[in-house]
């Protein structure tokens, strides 16, 4: 042990009571910041369970988990995008288009009358096509943002409109229903006592945690969000990383779309409207900074659970849908204010 360190320890041992108290309160506040989402979730659950006896039941628990699994899929992709200091407003529309394409290919296939050919799609084929569509749209987002330097807000807003229009064109404004029991299993089935959508979102979360914490791409994502110029100077291919991130977000939105379509046994042209806002809310409530570089997948999962529990609680408490929107908005606002306060104190 070096003398310098020894001196420091000596000094620490003779701290005054006020300094000790200050250090203690600082460590408490650090814990509070670290676990703020969990604390908020706990308080929320406590309040709702006191007000409704239907809340703390196993059936309702699975119901909430099933409902939030779609938001988790989208939010994980959104987290990666936000970590690079970007935003993806197109996920709701991408979800709808991918759900419609999956349903359409599964039900109607592709007809080529001039060749007297019918290309039918199996469940695997339709799901893969849906996911490919989402990934391609995400890649398009990334390409316009990096190639033409279009602000992410504007580029993804454009794709939001494009994807919604394409959905309307593809479905002709009508739902595509009656997709079969095998497809319905994705959204409504159970595996080992757990709903299939929860398994899907769980696998996505695990993969995203590994991606952000254990891979080079994950480190690059944080680096770009923290300081893009520094990341570029250190040799990171910013455009490639950003495009990859938007492609992943598109692919995950597609998975969300497939789950929604399967749950409803119907691809709705209006599916996914304002889902991007729920995803952004989950990301922000989960502690990810909108300016990028700071946040985590697990935080986002907590944020998604908070929103899910809040939605479920408000319904159980018979709160008017209009008030539900007001409450959700206030919670998001509060989360952003707390995030700002945390950033300042850091």
């Amino acid at each position: 042990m070096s003398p310098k360190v020894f001196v420091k320890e000596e000094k620490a041992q003779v701290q005054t009571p006020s300094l000790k108290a200050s250090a203690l309160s600082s460590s408490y506040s650090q814990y509070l910041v670290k676990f703020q989402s969990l604390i908020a979730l706990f308080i929320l659950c406590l309040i709702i369970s006191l007000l409704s006896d239907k809340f703390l039941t196993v059936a309702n628990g699975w119901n909430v988990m099933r409902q939030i699994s779609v938001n988790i899929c989208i939010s994980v992709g959104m987290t990666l995008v936000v970590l690079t200091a970007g935003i993806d407003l197109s996920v709701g529309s991408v979800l709808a288009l991918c759900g419609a394409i999956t349903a359409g290919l599964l039900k109607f296939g592709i007809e080529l009358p001039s060749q007297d050919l019918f290309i039918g799609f199996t469940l695997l084929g339709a799901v893969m096509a849906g996911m490919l569509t989402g990934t391609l749209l995400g890649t398009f987002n990334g390409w316009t943002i990096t190639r033409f330097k279009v602000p992410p807000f504007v580029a993804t807003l454009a794709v939001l409109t494009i994807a919604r229009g394409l959905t309307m064109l593809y479905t002709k404004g009508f739902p595509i229903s009656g997709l079969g029991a095998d497809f319905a299993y994705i959204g409504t089935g159970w595996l080992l006592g757990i709903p299939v959508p929860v398994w899907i979102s769980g696998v996505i979360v695990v993969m995203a945690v590994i991606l952000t914490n254990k891979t080079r791409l994950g480190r690059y994502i944080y680096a770009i969000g923290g300081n893009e110029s520094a990341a570029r100077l250190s040799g990171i291919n910013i455009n490639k990383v950003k495009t990859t991130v938007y492609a992943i977000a598109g692919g995950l939105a597609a998975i969300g779309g497939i789950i929604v379509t399967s749950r409803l046994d119907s691809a709705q042209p209006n599916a996914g409207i304002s889902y991007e806002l729920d995803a952004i809310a989950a990301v922000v409530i989960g502690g990810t900074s909108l300016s990028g570089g700071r946040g985590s997948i697990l935080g986002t999962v907590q944020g998604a659970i908070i929103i899910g529990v809040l939605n479920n609680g408000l319904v159980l408490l018979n709160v008017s849908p209009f008030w539900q929107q007001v409450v959700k908005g206030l919670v998001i606002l509060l989360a952003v204010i707390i995030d700002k306060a945390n950033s300042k104190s850091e």
Partner: protein
Amino acid sequence: MQKKVIKYTVALILLLVVGYNSVYIKKLSEVKAASTVGKFDAAAYAQTFWKEKLTPGLTKANNLPELLTLLKSEKENAFKNYSHALGIGNLRYFLIKGEGKITAINENDISVTLLPDSVGKDVKIATEFVYGNAVRDALGILSINDFSNTMDMNNVSAELNKKIRTEIIPPFRAQAKKGDVVAFTGAIELNQAHLRLDEIEVIPVSLKLVRD
């Protein structure tokens, strides 16, 4: 280099396996022929329903002026005894009949004052936007269980509405003039929770001019 070759070979094999299990190709003519067998024909169903159920069922239609009076005085009873709907919700449908004097021929509807004059109530007969499930559900004889999926059920409504738009309304609209008296049967939709009797719109099933 060798590593790259192995990587791309594995990816290609995987792609081929997935591709092979993803699509199948058939002759379109065969697929079309097979798909028509046992397929629900909403148009034929609607035609039969109209001829064999709805038209004879019009004898059970409620006299509109009397129904309106009842709705004002005994709303719950009126809904309970005379309205129908598939599923839950506040929107319910009544099969109605009545006579009225045409007061205006508008772009999307025809305004009539119900007769006898003592009723003094204005309603509209839809002539342009004929949508919804009022005609299908007002008789109250169809059940969700009669159909294998909701789309088939909704297609029946679409076919009934199409028939009204193309066969019932055009000949009537071509002849109708302000001041004429019209005898009508049809369906109306009312919201049980938020009842408004000042905006009644009749979806017509039959329209007959009775010259004054």
